[in-house]
């Protein structure tokens, strides 16, 4: 088997920490390189820190620094793809896919982790996930990495059934929490959304298990 390489592709700084940092930690402990291709700077986020310390014009700088710190915590490489927050679904998908294909091939990915298009709540998540699926589909069958997709939407199991890959990430919980907290401007807001949610314990439990559906090109 060829040398393993994991490429994580999400649109915002912090998606990697909330969505896949337990799985990322598992791979890093196994000595497998992990690269995060981060689509945007999350510069249109509405969390500005609590108390507020960022504004619309400085948020991108904070989020870039936060991502660098989270990547240090997780011991992964980061590449910024340079798209603009909230706009990915309006970019021509084939152009984004061609861009992603070039990076996936250059990094020799054997596993690509992204969002499940249509089940990922945020339009940027859905759009980038769809572009990843297209990018890998354009590769020769023998060269294709596995595509693992993270679904977020409520009740997605009703449509999708059980996920193909399930990791109990409690052994990596400390690292996951440290990575989430590195995203200072975002962590409080997202965590309080989760904690004040009517299904708070369910939402928190969700963070302790990471589930992925594997895309089938057949």
């Amino acid at each position, binding site marked *: 088997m060829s040398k393993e390489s994991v490429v994580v592709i999400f649109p915002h700084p912090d998606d990697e920490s909330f969505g896949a940092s337990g799985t990322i930690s598992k791979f890093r402990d196994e000595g497998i390189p992990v690269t995060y291709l981060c689509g945007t*700077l999350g510069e*249109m986020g509405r*969390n*500005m820190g609590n108390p507020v310390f960022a*504004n619309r014009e400085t948020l991108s700088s904070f989020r*870039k620094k936060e991502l660098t710190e989270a990547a240090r915590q997780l011991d992964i490489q980061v590449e910024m793809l340079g798209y603009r927050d909230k706009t990915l679904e309006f970019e021509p998908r084939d152009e984004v896919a061609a861009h992603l294909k070039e990076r996936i091939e250059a990094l020799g990915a054997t596993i690509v982790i992204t969002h499940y298009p249509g089940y990922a*709540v945020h339009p940027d998540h859905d759009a980038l996930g769809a572009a990843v699926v297209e990018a890998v589909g354009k590769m020769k069958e023998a060269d294709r990495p596995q595509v693992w997709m993270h679904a977020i939407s409520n009740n997605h199991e009703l449509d999708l059934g059980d996920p193909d890959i399930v990791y109990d990430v409690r052994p990596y919980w400390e690292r996951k929490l440290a990575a989430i907290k590195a995203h200072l401007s975002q962590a409080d*807001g997202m965590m309080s*959304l989760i904690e004040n949610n009517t299904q708070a314990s369910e939402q928190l439990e969700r963070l302790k298990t990471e589930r992925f559906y594997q895309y089938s090109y057949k």
Partner: protein
Amino acid sequence: MDAIQQQIVQNKIDQLAGKDVYVHLETTNGAYASHFDENAYNVGAFIRNAHVSYQHGKIVSTGGSYRVGLKLDLGWVYAEGLTDYEVDDKDRLLMAGHDREGRLMVALEISETPFSHEADPDE
């Protein structure tokens, strides 16, 4: 950002009147509104770098937050719910309204130079 001081903001609005300016106007309740509350609606809009010139503008207190209206030759720029402001090192007037948790709900920003995608490295 600091709590809006009406007179300071009004002076800045007056200073920028009649000039070619770039406007960032935005409102959002977040992409996760209906995910975390099925009764909520996701609503948002933004326009970045609208290139306009306004005849005059005014900031009005509503007791707690502020409205700003800018009169254009052919229309208006309007924002409600503004609570905080900053005149940054590029002399841009940045205004925003935040909820109790500090989340941005509305923003209105006026600049004599275009707003960039990414802040300068030294910012």
